[in-house]
C-alpha cells in the first residue's frame, strides 16, 4: 500500500514538472554570450583603431601594478582578517576588544576617505613614530591602506563562518583533549571553510576593482595611467573605453579562476554532506 502511494507520488512529480519546465532557449545562459560579444567587439575596436591602440599602449604598464597590488592586498587582508576574526571569538578580553574596535572602526568609514587617511596620515605617522620615517614607499602605503580595510571586512567573514559551526563540535573536540587551538584548526576551521571561501573569493574580486581607488594616492595603476594619458592627449573616449575593457577582462579572468577553484573545493569535499 505504502509502496503504491510512493510509486504514484513519483509518477505525478515529473508530469507536473515537465509542464513547468522552460524550453532550452529560455534557460540557456545567454548572458555569457552577451558578455563575450561585448568583449570581442571592444577588443576588435582597440586592435584596429590606431587611437585606441595608442591608449592601450599607454595604459597597459599599469596592469602589472594593479595585479601585483591586488595579490599583495588580498594576502595581507586574508591574514589580518583571520587574526581579527579569531580575535573576535577569542576568550582573551584584550584580543576580543582590539579586534572588535578595528573591525567596527573600518566598517564605519567610507572606503575612499579611509584610504586617504591611512595612506597619507596614519601609516606615515606610525612609521615615523617607530623611528622609521619615510621608510614605507608610496605604493606600499596604498597597499597597506586597502589591506587594512579589507582585513576588517574579511574578519567579519571569518567570525561569521566560525560562529556558524555548532558549539557541540568545539565541545566534542575539547572533551577529547584537543586544545582550543587544535580544535579550531582541525575541527572548526575545516567546516567553516565551506561558508568562508565563497565570500572571501568575492572580496578578492572586490579588491581587484577597488585598486582603482589607489589612483587617488598616486599609485600608477590602470586608472591613474588612464587619467594621465587622457589628460595629456585629450583622447578621453579612447582612454576610458580601453580602461573599461581592461578591467572587465581582468575581473572575468579572476572570477573564472575562482569559480574553478571553488568547484574543485566542493568536489573534494563531496563526501561530507
Amino acid at each position: 500500500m505504502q509502496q503504491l502511494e510512493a510509486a504514484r507520488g513519483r509518477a505525478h512529480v515529473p508530469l507536473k514538472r515537465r509542464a513547468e519546465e522552460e524550453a532550452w532557449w529560455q534557460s540557456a545562459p545567454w548572458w555569457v554570450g552577451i558578455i563575450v560579444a561585448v568583449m570581442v567587439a571592444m577588443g576588435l575596436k582597440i586592435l584596429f583603431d590606431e587611437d585606441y591602440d595608442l591608449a592601450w599602449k599607454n595604459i597597459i604598464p599599469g596592469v602589472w601594478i594593479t595585479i601585483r597590488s591586488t595579490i599583495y592586498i588580498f594576502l595581507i587582508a586574508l591574514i589580518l582578517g583571520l587574526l581579527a576574526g579569531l580575535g573576535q571569538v577569542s576568550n582573551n578580553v584584550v584580543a576580543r576588544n582590539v579586534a572588535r574596535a578595528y573591525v567596527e572602526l573600518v566598517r564605519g568609514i567610507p572606503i575612499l576617505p579611509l584610504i586617504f587617511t591611512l595612506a597619507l596620515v596614519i601609516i606615515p605617522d606610525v612609521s615615523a613614530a617607530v623611528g622609521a620615517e619615510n621608510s614605507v614607499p608610496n605604493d606600499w602605503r596604498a597597499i597597506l591602506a586597502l589591506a587594512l580595510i579589507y582585513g576588517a571586512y574579511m574578519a567579519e567573514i571569518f567570525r561569521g563562518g566560525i560562529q556558524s559551526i555548532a558549539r557541540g563540535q568545539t565541545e566534542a573536540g575539547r572533551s577529547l583533549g584537543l586544545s582550543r587551538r587544535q580544535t579550531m584548526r582541525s575541527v572548526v576551521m575545516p567546516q567553516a571553510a565551506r561558508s568562508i571561501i565563497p565570500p572571501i573569493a568575492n572580496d578578492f574580486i572586490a579588491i581587484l576593482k577597488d585598486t582603482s581607488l589607489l589612483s587617488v594616492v598616486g599609485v600608477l595603476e590602470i586608472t591613474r595611467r588612464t587619467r594621465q594619458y587622457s589628460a595629456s592627449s585629450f583622447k578621453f573616449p579612447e582612454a576610458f573605453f580601453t580602461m573599461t575593457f581592461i578591467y572587465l577582462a581582468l575581473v572575468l579572468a579572476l572570477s573564472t579562476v575562482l569559480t574553478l577553484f571553488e568547484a574543485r573545493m566542493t568536489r573534494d569535499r563531496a563526501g561530507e554532506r
Partner: protein
Amino acid sequence: MNMISVQGLHKTFNKTIHAVRGVDLEVAAGEVVVIIGPSGCGKSTMLRCINLLEVPTEGEVSIDGADLMDKGTDLDLVRAEVGMVFQSFNLFPHLTVLDNITLAQKKVRKRSKEDAEVEARKQLERVGIPDKADAYPRQLSGGQQQRVAIARSLAMGPKVMLFDEPTSALDPEMIKEVLDVMLELAEIGMTMVVVTHEMGFARAAADRVVFMDEGVIVETGPPDEMFSNPKEERTKAFFDQILP
C-alpha cells in the same frame, strides 16, 4: 582514593540561573553511577563540570587525584582521560569515521597514524561497526553515529566515561544497540557516570542511582532499592511520573 570526587559544587549561569546548588558526588574506580531527575534540574551542568566544559562557580572537582580547579593542572590532558558522549553525538561531519577516531589520538596522544588506525579499528569492532571505517557520519544511522562517538572516546583510553542522555536523540529501535555497548563497558569495569531516562539500563548496570532535583542530589542508593522503595517524596513523585 575515588576516581571522581565532586565536593560542594555550585554552578550559576549569568549570575542568576543557579543550575547546580551544592552537589557532593564520589565515584569509585569501576563504579557505574546513573543520574536521573526531571528536565532542567542540572544533570547536564553537573556532568559538564566534571570535565570542565563548564567552569564551576564554586566547589572542588578532581579526577583520579588531579584537582581540576588547580591552575597548575593541564586540563587538556585530564579531558583526554575523561570520555564524554553527548546526546547529539557531535561527530565531526567533515571527517570519515576512521578520521573521527584517530584525530585526537594523533594530536593528543601523539600516536602514529598506523597505531591510531589500529586502535580505531579495534574500538569500531568493539562497538559492532567495523565495516563503517570509511563512511562519513551523515551516511550512518543515529545509533551507529552514537556508537562511533563512544568508540572515539574509548580510543583515547579514558579512565572515566561520562554519558549525557546518550540515547535520547535516537529512534526506539536504535536505543538497544547503544545501551548494549554501554552495558558491555560497565561489565569490563569502566568507571561511568550516565545521565539517562533508561531505567532498564539503570537496573542492569548501575551500582548506584542518583536522583537530582532543582540542582541538588535528593537521594542516592542501589537501583532496586531506589526503584522499589524510594525514601523521599520527590523521588516517589518522579518515579510515579516516569514509570508505567
